[in-house]
């Protein structure tokens, strides 16, 4: 009688049916990006992969992902060989669409498997909570919007991440956890943001003796170091032999891009730009100097290279320093008490820090916070109250990704469905905490959640009716500023919970 219902497999089947129905839905340029990568990996020899630039969507993921595309392309040629031609830009025959969409659903099985591992690894009373959390990740509107409509392969990769996190739960599988994470890094380098937590955790629990920090377990160090080195060698080795590492690095880390991504991820910099924009109106009265060239970009609204009119400009170096600083803070606690809960908490906080302070952060990266947080959100009610504004803000911030009218009811109704279902379910499942809650925090979070309704209505309907096509940046700015408040609020809340529990 350990089974709880519905099971993950049952949810996966029904969700799968829904996702197949979404085949003809809107797809972003990421669809073409991945088609192009299929074509590159299939028709070019290995050492030309990172140099090919017929399409503007060049290969900018690490080699394991390229290998992954190569494997997919072996099947793709059975579906429609035409999609594998590099010059066939923007090619989207129905076979191509079906094939690519279907691979997303199929590779998401990794996530289902990892979540099942997570549920199985939970014991006793928390098992039911683990099941609910697992289902919430599987049905996440974030994954639905990003993977199954917008088009990406996050489901598969977050599956690997969760599997690695779950493996870290047991002493015997710590090595596997580290190696799996190394492999994940070679698939998508965004997970580098989480690497500090892994480093500290594995260092403390695997490489150092649990009894004393000063006793080093050399054999374990060799195993882990050698394993990670071997994985990186498998990924990058063939390219290193040809001396292509600098080229790959320039593809993976394009620092030429701006601070804020076109859609403004809801982070500190979105709030920073919002304040800047407010100050433009106030500056003449207070006598602050305005930079004229920045005003140009203000009127354009959507900008790749944000420059600020009043506030000082932000350099990548500043972002990097701030990110590292806020990542380091929770790591001290992790080093001192390396429990699994603290580890997942630290991973979450690393995600938060990089999302909030990182350079050119994409709003899709919010999954980097939501997914690990979901695993511990049901520990007790204090965790849950920090999770709640994140769940709302994180998903609302994804809405601008889908701007076509047909997808509007889909994204809103699905997200509302998910929020109602899981916030209600989590509320019942999360046990009470032994410690007092923060003063008024829950009230504010309820108020915050309530504000999302008029906000979404304004951005999707009212704005268009009132202003038409002008001031297009306004809804985006409101959405990201609103979401930024939620993400920052939940970050602060979670920091407090993390350090006081």
């Amino acid at each position, binding site marked *: *009688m350990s*089974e*709880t*219902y*519905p*099971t993950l497999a*049952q949810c996966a*089947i*029904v969700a799968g*049916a*829904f996702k*197949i*129905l*979404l*085949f*003809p*839905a809107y797809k972003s340029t990421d669809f073409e990006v991945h088609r192009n990568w299929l074509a590159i990996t299939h028709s070019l020899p290995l050492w030309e992969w990172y140099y090919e630039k017929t399409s503007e969507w060049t290969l900018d993921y690490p080699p394991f992902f390229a290998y992954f595309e190569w494997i997919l392309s072996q099947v793709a040629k059975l579906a429609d060989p035409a999609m594998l031609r590099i010059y066939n830009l923007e090619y989207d025959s129905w076979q191509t669409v079906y094939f690519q969409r279907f691979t997303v659903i199929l590779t998401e099985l990794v996530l289902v498997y990892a979540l099942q591992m997570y549920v199985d690894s939970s014991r006793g009373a928390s098992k*039911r909570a683990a099941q609910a959390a697992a289902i919430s990740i599987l049905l996440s509107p974030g994954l639905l919007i990003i993977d199954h409509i917008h088009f990406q392969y996050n489901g598969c990769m977050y599956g690997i991440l969760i599997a690695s996190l779950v493996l870290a739960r047991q002493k015997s599988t710590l090595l596997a956890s580290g190696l799996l994470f190394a492999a994940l890094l070679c698939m998508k380098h965004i997970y580098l943001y989480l690497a500090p937590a892994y480093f500290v955790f594995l260092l403390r629990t695997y490489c150092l003796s649990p009894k004393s920090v000063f006793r080093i377990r050399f054999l374990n160090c060799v195993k882990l170091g050698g394993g990670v080195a071997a994985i990186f060698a498998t990924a990058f080795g063939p390219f290193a032999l040809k001396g292509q590492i600098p080229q790959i690095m320039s593809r993976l880390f394009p620092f030429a891009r701006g601070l804020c991504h076109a859609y403004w991820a809801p982070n500190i910099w979105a709030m920073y730009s919002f304040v800047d924009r407010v100050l433009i109106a106030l500056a003449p009265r207070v006598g602050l100097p305005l930079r004229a060239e920045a005003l140009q970009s203000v009127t354009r609204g959507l900008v790749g290279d944000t420059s600020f009119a009043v506030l000082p400009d932000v350099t990548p170096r500043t972002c990097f320093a701030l990110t590292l600083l806020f990542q380091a803070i929770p790591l001290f606690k992790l080093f001192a008490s390396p429990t699994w809960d603290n580890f997942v908490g630290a991973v979450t906080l690393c995600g938060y820090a990089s999302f909030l302070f990182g350079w050119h952060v994409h709003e899709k990266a919010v999954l980097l916070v939501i997914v690990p947080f979901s695993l511990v959100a049901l520990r007790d009610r204090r965790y849950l109250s920090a999770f709640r504004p994140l769940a709302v803000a994180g998903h609302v911030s994804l809405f601008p990704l889908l701007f076509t*009218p*047909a997808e509007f*009811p*889909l994204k809103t*109704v*699905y997200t*509302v*469905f998910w929020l*109602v*279902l899981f916030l*209600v*379910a989590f509320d*019942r*499942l*999360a*046990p*009470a905490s032994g410690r007092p809650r923060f003063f008024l925090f829950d009230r504010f979070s309820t108020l915050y959640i309530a504000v999302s309704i008029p906000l979404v209505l304004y951005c999707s309907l009212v704005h268009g009716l009132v202003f038409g096509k002008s001031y297009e940046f306004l809804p985006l700015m409101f959405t990201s500023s609103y979401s930024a408040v939620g993400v920052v609020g939940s970050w602060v809340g979670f920091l407090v919970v993390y350090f006081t529990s």
Partner: protein
Amino acid sequence: MAGHAPSTPRQRRKAVKKPTANVIVSVDQHLSKADALVRTPTFPLSAFLWPARGSVSQWEILPLILMVAGLFRWAAGFWGYSGLGNPPMFGDYEAQRHWMEVTTQLPVSQWYFHDLLWWGLDYPPMTAYHSWLCGKLGSLINPEWFALYTSRGSDDANLKIFMRATVIVSEYLIYVPAAVIFVRRYSRLSGVSTWSAWVALVAILMQPATILIDHVHFQYNTVMLGFVLASMSSMVAGRYYWASVFFVAALGFKQMALYYAFSVFAFLLGNCVFPRINATRFVGIAAVTVVSFAVLLLPIVLGTLYDVSHGVDPRPDLDGPRPPLPLFPELGKYVDSEAIYYPVIEQLLQMVHRVFPFARGLFEDKVANFWCAANLVVKLKQYPSELLQRGAALMTLASIIPPNLILFFRPRKTLLPLAFATTAWGFFLFSYQVHEKSVLLPLMPMTLLLAGKHGLAKDTRAWVGFANLLGCWTMFPLLSRVELRVPYTVLTLLWTYLLGLPPTSLSAYFQEGSSLWTQWGTFFVHAGFYLAMALWHVLEATVKPPEDKPDLWVVANVGIGAAGFMICYLWCLWRLAVEGEVIPKSWTRKAKPKTQ
């Protein structure tokens, strides 16, 4: 059992979402005793609602159910509609769009006369009013969608979104509330627990046939079906006047609701006669019906009179002398063509003429009913059409008289879905001018059985599932014409999966407690049909039909479908006879079936 404190270990395992705070669990209203004893869900749909077995308020679960049903409908709408990119005539989508064009752009008196060759309006007035409303709303967004003449065959992407939205909104205003209320009333009447009623509601809302036809293929059947449901729901609640109003609305939206008319009549009349004759009720129902029809026709009549007074000709395209009256030209001898009421009569006759196309053949296209199947054996075209029409009328009457007699003599509310289903099957199988989409009409009440007593037990589930799957399958040729194989496959398989039916599971067979003959009989009949359907799909996809018989697969579909529907008709009739207690008890050896 249900009254026990929720803290006993066994209870804790069952109430999945146990409230943590100081909430007292009251399971008694939600679960019947039999339900509470069940430890594991028997089919996936009940697993999905398993967490709702605790004290979950309806205000939490109902919105969730409605959102899921809506999401699947909207997602299905992403696929193509009938007639997409298929000139010159396009399809049902164009017909509906064109009616919005006609009703918003032309005076009322021209609605039923305007260019009849291009999807002339041939539905009753309520459809015209509905089209007018949708057309007006749509014109606010983009007037070009419904511009006269120039909008024909439009495949504007935003127009598609608007049209899809009108279907969903209409359904959520009429069908969905009616279904929710019906399921609640009917399950309470049958003594079914609230939790089982939720399961049944989801199964009814996720019924693949209606989603495929309304939200993929494109039609507004759920509006008519919703009015019928509202009428049935009023009958269950004992509000017979409202029942007649809603039924007139259903008839006024789509004439196909006539399939149910005999049952409505039999039930209402039966209630006026048994247990004692109630003349007031009878007169009241008659009066309400007449008034409802009058209200239904009033806008058309007033519009015609208005047009006459403003000198608008209903047929501006015709020159020369006034054409004779439609349908009954000889009536013109008795009516003064200059009289003020003449245009009204002309208008109403034209409407009836358009709505009931007596001039068409016995059957249209290939449809899985008796006539089309019989045509495979005997070429029916060789007989005079009058003989065929008379034959069809007689056969139909013969098939619908037994169920309606039962309903008349035993006017019980619990029998409503069965009687409605049997009558509609009779009409579908034997009547004149049947369309393959008409199979929705018998399917709707039959699916409602899930909300009744033992509705989720294996036996009922197996038969309701069988009818629904067969129904979807006979509509496959219609759907494959517009390349809708993917939504067809996904939606039907999803439903079978949720209800634990073949081809995903055999769990709905071998009901404990019924006789071995029934168990194996059901199993073999269903297995035979399911295998035939599967084999048909394989052949249809891989083998080209021989040159001289291009319609071979469609014909095979029709033959198998008609046989299966006949069995469904017989099963419904038998169940009706058993539950109406017209058959002596000794005949039915069936022991009392256990709940699932």
